[in-house]
């Protein structure tokens, strides 16, 4: 009997032991396959400990409850010829199992409250990053005090050929982007999270951060990462067709590398300013335009302009019609539909290129061109 009870107990504990060994693997930033990861932040470690504590309590209670049930199933069966007892109440026992769980819950509430208060403490941040969700990409904007903000979009880099099984899938399939968010190590980074269209949710498990990105609201959360590395996450709130295809990649680097990277981005921004003043040839516009199209338009309008969620581009009245109104739709979008105002999302060079591309690819062959200065003039009215 005693031996049996011990074995039962071990059996009930097996899943917990499995999780704990997995947790040991997970230490040091490795991503676990079967359990929450403690991640690379202090807060993440606290959340992980809380998770394991509650799980442990549940497993112990579960082992007790299921143990009693199993005993009953084995020893109180009719086929053993037992006479059923007829007892059906006991005020003492009933009060006991109402009050005891209540105190267990209070025991859980203490660490939960402390951790929650820390999560909500977004004060005294070293830097701010504005995270904006778009269908279906993220925009990151570094809010610097000198006003020289660095901002860029972060798109899925996994090619369609891997998604549709024409090519073998890479190591970071669906969790790779063209431009990751770069953050310095050991700095308290405050994320201001919002959205441009529908609700998204910015989730990086290793940073223990998840916050809904809601149009019209700016939510706050924060992380202080102690280990440099690349951390991957995904949008967690259903946001339409490509909800599964808007990953997040955070590249945490040393403070020196971060400063270097930031300077590089600022230089890039001034280079784009120069480009805006240039006049491009048709070939240059078409090459750039194709890139921009694939990154921003393809998801809705199709690889060959055949349409999908969006209207077709090939032979469309817009792309083969008046250039001014085509440009207007590109810049201001179509309110009330999924067609966004791309004027704020891509720069004037890219806008000029993609409009030119749409008017001359897919058999549209309009022969006309848009230059960055045209886009600028249109925006200025």
């Amino acid at each position: 009997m005693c031996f049996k009870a011990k074995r039962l107990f071990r059996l009930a504990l097996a899943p917990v032991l499995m999780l704990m060994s997995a947790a040991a693997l997970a230490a040091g930033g490795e991503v676990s396959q079967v359990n929450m990861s403690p991640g690379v932040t202090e807060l993440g470690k606290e959340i992980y400990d809380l998770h394991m504590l509650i799980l442990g309590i549940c497993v112990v209670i579960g082992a007790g409850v299921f143990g009693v049930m199993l005993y009953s199933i084995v020893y109180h069966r009719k086929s053993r010829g037992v006479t059923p007892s007829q007892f059906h109440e006991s005020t003492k026992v009933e009060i006991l199992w109402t009050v005891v769980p209540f105190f267990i819950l209070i025991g859980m509430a203490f660490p939960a409250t402390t951790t929650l208060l820390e999560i909500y403490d977004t004060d005294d941040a070293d830097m701010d990053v504005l995270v904006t969700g778009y269908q279906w990409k993220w925009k990151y904007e570094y809010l610097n005090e000198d006003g020289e903000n660095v901002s860029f979009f972060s798109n899925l880099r996994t090619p369609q050929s891997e998604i549709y099984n024409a090519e073998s899938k890479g190591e970071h399939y669906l969790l790779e982007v063209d431009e990751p968010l770069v953050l310095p190590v050991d700095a308290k980074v405050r994320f201001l999270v919002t959205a441009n269209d529908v609700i998204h949710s910015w989730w990086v498990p290793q940073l223990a951060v998840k916050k809904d990105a809601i149009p019209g609201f700016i939510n706050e959360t924060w992380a202080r990462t102690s280990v440099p590395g690349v951390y991957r996450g995904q949008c967690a709130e259903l946001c339409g067709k490509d909800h599964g295809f808007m990953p997040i990649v955070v590249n945490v680097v040393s403070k020196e590398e971060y400063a270097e990277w930031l300077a590089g981005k600022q230089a890039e921004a001034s280079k784009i300013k120069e480009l805006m003043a240039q006049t491009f040839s048709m070939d240059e516009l078409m090459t750039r335009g194709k890139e921009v199209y694939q990154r921003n338009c393809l998801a809705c309008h199709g690889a060959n302009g055949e349409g999908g969620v969006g209207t077709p581009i090939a032979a469309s009245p817009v792309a083969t019609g008046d250039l001014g109104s085509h440009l207007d739709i590109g810049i201001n979008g179509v309110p009330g539909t999924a067609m966004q105002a791309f004027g704020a999302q891509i720069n004037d060079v890219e806008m000029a290129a993609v409009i030119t591309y749409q008017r001359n690819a897919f058999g549209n062959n309009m022969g006309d061109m848009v230059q960055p200065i045209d886009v600028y003039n249109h925006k200025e009215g």
Partner: protein
Amino acid sequence: MGDHHHGPAKGLTRWMFTTNHKDIGTMYLWFSFAMFILGGAFAMIIRAELFQPGMQLIEPAFFNQMTTMHGLVMVFGAIMPAFVGLANWMIPMMIGAPDMALPRMNNWSFWILPPAFLLLASTLFMEGGAPAFGWTFYAPLSTTYAPPSVTYFIFSIHVLGLSSIMGSINIIATVMNMRAPGMTYMKMPLFVWTWLITAFLLVAVMPVLAGAVTMMLMDIHFGTSFFSAAGGGDPVLFQHIFWFFGHPEVYIIILPAFGVVSQIIPAFSRKPLFGYASMVYATAAIAFLSFVVWAHHMYTVGMPIAGELFFMYATMLIAVPTGVKVFNWITTMWRGALSFETPMLFCIGFLVLFTIGGFTGLMLSIAPADFQYHDSYFVVAHFHYVMVAGAVFSMTAAVYFWLPKWCGKMYNETMGKTHFWISFIGFNLAFFPQHFVGLAGMPRRIPDYALQFADFNMMSSIGAFIYGASQIMFLYNVIATIVAGKPTSDEKVWDGAEGLEWTVATPAPYHTFEVPPAVK
């Protein structure tokens, strides 16, 4: 008097115009089973696409339609009508009433259901496709960014709500007015009690859902901006309204299941239910708490800390009455004389798996940890443990338990037990691994996933196919019983079963308790 003893009318009109609670109950049960198969087919498509990483069978847009329709059909088409059907059949027989209090409304509340679902299903063939914004239909994805079919979806929800409200009013009226003399409230079978409380929940929250979809309709067609930030509205408001309906809805689904289990476990333990009074109070406590915990579905929307803490504490409290229920069921089994016929197997399956779902529920209630669980597969695993292993297992148990009384024939016990074991194994294979992938970082509602989730997803798909296939066996067993089951005429089909329904003839005559029974 003679006229009152006629049998059912012949042909189709019997079903069209019937006011008989047993006929209407039967129609509800068959309808809900048809919807269970339809919703299950959607689930099979989802699991087939998720069998491997990469897009193989369907496009992401269609995948979203499938997850949405699966949820809507299962919640509103399968589980809720199944329990209403059971209530129709059993409540009058359990309280010694000749029929439901409002029989003509009863007919109507059933017959508006099929058109509502026809309308909902027809959206699959509309331009732009069916609703693809999840069964929780968060604005503005379900308003500004929705396919045109959303208007049909809204109308369908209105009709479903109407049906539910009428059904609930009928149940409240029946329980309050039609009990046999001597059948005091505290003598009512627990299934009646849980349904009475459920009916109040329904009457309270279905109008809230109707309000939410009406506001959506206004936003889409009449230029208002309830949920559009650009017009001064508030997308989070939608979530508050939705979950004010949605959380009690969870208990609307599970409370009748508690009732069923509380009838069946004592029968096969050959021992009275332990702690009857505390079961009633626990049910009422759960129902009350269900109104003040809705925002635990929204921990990540950016609520103020005070709100976050309130909803966390309130949610944790639900563990107390739920725990009382589980302890009571197990104590009912303790020192009984147990036997393990199919209904009892499904109830024990319920007890084990629902408790696991309860534990994960407690984990989810801890707000700081929920920041990691929220909208991951951990949540998907959690609510399938309570919805499928909770509601659907108990409903299956109920069918096996009362089927011999309904049709006077015995089902095939071996096939029933086989159905249980295949269901149990298939279910756990499908949903247990989802805890792992969720904790490891897989978001829900994605049509394709990163490579590290591949093994568990394949396992999950295989389990889902097994669970799905086992329901065909269930259907076969039920039809075979009705057509060619071994006849039984024992009034008490199960030797340990107690209650008025076991005092009438088997099969239950078309009209029962035309003269009220005496209740001691």
